[in-house]
């Protein structure tokens, strides 16, 4: 029993020490980091995002809240653009508030949003609500930089009953091997629909005698393709293949009625 007590006390001390953060200059938390809504045209939905100042040094955080549009970059990350700069923008539909405030250390603020989908709207619309700390008054007397941070909540809105899923495989190729001996299979998807798609599936390697040599999962991360845009995906193949002619066959499920498929041949010397 004594042992249980010691273990319990130790566990308690550890849990407290893990929970209580150290002193930091800035320590922010947002919850949730992603909001997904399905709304009928002409209707609205409400929600909130909680931002917490977890700083324990007593410093209040000055936070500014704003909405931006987003696009995909070739590296899979997103770039952020001013409001209303993309066809899938939701900037005109969303109102957030409050938009600027101080959060005392250890406290939190609820930022409410109202999403108002106009009549006649269709498809998927996407954006990000950013929470950015204010730049602290500079203590730098000569040459120096101030650092601030921003966290974003991704917002995805589907206009209920209006989504169309349509995509095509524009190209597929295999290059290499590179200096490390890896092949790279690349394929480009064009999203012809009006909503974000996340094409995932398999890439098969088939030899000249039509024997399947290998099968690998592609786009396991479920990266998306925005409406009316193309996106190139690539997959490294690190196993060594004997010399010969092969086929790379890709089969993708993007949420449409049919699977997307395509194949190309390549030679290993």
């Amino acid at each position, binding site marked *: 029993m004594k042992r249980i007590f010691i273990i319990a006390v130790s566990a*308690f001390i550890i849990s407290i020490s893990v929970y209580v953060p150290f002193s930091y*200059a*800035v*320590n922010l938390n947002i919850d949730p980091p992603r909001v997904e809504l399905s709304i009928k045209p002409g209707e609205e939905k409400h929600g909130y995002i909680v931002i917490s100042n977890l700083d324990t040094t007593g410093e209040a955080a000055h936070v500014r809240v704003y909405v931006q549009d987003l696009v995909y970059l070739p590296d899979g990350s997103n770039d952020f653009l001013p409001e209303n700069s993309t066809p899938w923008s939701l900037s005109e539909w969303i109102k957030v508030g409050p938009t600027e405030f101080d959060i005392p250390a250890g406290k939190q603020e609820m930022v409410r949003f109202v999403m108002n989908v106009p009549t006649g709207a269709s498809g998927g619309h996407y954006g990000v609500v950013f929470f950015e700390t204010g730049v602290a008054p500079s203590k730098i007397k*000569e040459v120096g930089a101030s*650092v*601030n941070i921003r966290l*974003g909540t991704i917002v995805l809105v589907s206009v209920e009953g209006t989504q169309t899923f349509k995509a095509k495989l524009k190209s597929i190729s295999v290059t290499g091997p590179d200096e490390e001996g890896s092949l790279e299979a690349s394929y480009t998807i064009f999203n012809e629909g009006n909503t974000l798609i996340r094409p995932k599936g398999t890439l098969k390697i088939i030899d000249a005698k039509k024997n399947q040599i290998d099968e690998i999962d592609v786009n396991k991360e479920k990266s998306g393709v925005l409406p009316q845009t193309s996106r190139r995906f690539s997959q490294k193949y690190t196993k060594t293949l004997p010399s010969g002619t092969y086929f790379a066959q890709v089969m993708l499920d993007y949420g449409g009625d049919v699977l997307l498929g395509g194949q190309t041949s390549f030679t290993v010397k």
Partner: protein
Amino acid sequence: MKIKKIFYILCVVMLLCAGSSDAALQMTLDYNMIDFGAMNTGESKEVTIKGAYHNQLTCSSTNNMTWYLKAQVVKPFSFMQYTIPEENFKWTVVSVGAGKGIVNGGVNFTFPFSRTPVLIYTSDPDDNTGTAIDIAFRYSLQVPDNQVAGNYNATVRFIMIETL
């Protein structure tokens, strides 16, 4: 019997503590100044006030989604109408504790700051369940030979967000 009771109370307290720390997307910056001090024209300087590094970002997510960290210069080094080119100001990831994700360019690779956000780190699925990932940085600045003397200040921004 009393010990048993204390044990149960401690268990409840531990659960409450765990419940209140649901860091959905959390970023901590341990030092928000990059002070190069006095510099001469033509001089290069690297700052690492904490020994091997200058400051550290700690990022964590419990949302089971890939997230990434980017850096950008919001305001380049400027004094009155004079600016130091953005590419003269550089950052290097010195270390990534606990993270299994991808460091853009690898650890110890130096990138120039840019107005366009540059990718620093992309999380691995193992990083997305609450692991606190410490990313330590050092910074360098090269003052051009013909730069007008003055007190130059810049603003840098770190961005953490999930992928769409």
